[in-house]
């Protein structure tokens, strides 16, 4: 039995769904950010798998994955800066207690 495109896509879907569940249900905003990282990694696996099995010579999927990594790193840096800033003023990392924008 060999490993095909479907195996990788379903693995990517499982990682994405676990991340989705975590982003919906966690209270700690750092863990929500970690869950979003899991979702991005699932999407990256899908991109690389498509690149490997559908267009092995074009490599476009791998280039997209590089840009996705750049944007993910940017998102983590800004997100964690916001978390540190919010923690300084509110002294909590509980997403249900951070209601500055609620009215």
């Amino acid at each position, binding site marked *: 039995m060999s490993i*095909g495109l*479907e195996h*990788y896509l379903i693995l990517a879907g*499982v990682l994405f*769904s676990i991340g989705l569940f975590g982003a919906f249900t966690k209270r700690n905003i750092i*863990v929500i950010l*970690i869950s979003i990282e899991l979702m991005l990694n699932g999407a990256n696996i899908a991109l690389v798998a498509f690149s490997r099995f*559908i267009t092995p010579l074009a490599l476009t999927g791998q280039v997209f994955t590089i840009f996705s990594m750049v944007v993910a790193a940017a998102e983590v840096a800004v997100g964690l800066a916001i*978390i540190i800033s919010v*923690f300084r003023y509110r002294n909590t990392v509980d997403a249900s207690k951070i209601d500055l924008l609620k009215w």
Partner: protein
Amino acid sequence: MGLVIAFWILAAVAVLAALGVLFQKNVFRAALSLVLCLTAVAGIFITLSADFLAAAQILIYVGAVSVLIILTIMLTRDVSQGNPFNRNLIPAFAVSAAFLGLLTWAVLNTGWKISPEAPPTAITPGLAEKLFGGNGFILPLEIAGILLLAVVIGAIVIAREK
């Protein structure tokens, strides 16, 4: 055969570590679980013969992003609080499971046009040609550089003491 065994081991490690992120009681251990998951994903990239991306995954995610996350956990320490779930467990589980089911159904019922060609043995020169060559991705690459510069400045401005 070795590739098949490697895939199943790495996939199991990745999924179990991702579940560990959700179910570890301690936020710090959840972050370490994320590091394990990211390393397994780097191994998955190697089984897809994307060796440059595996190295980039280790450098960017396992090296830099995880250090940032662990530092932030240390700076915003809330030991008594732990890693709790909120109240919409059941609807969130329903939505995630429905999404996974739909995705699996779509993947299994699509006629993928699998290419018979083997991937090139050296990926990195082709990748460099794509990124820097003519008709390539040179403009997005420059924009990514500007994005990273803006992020460095923005993160400093947001996180600094007023």
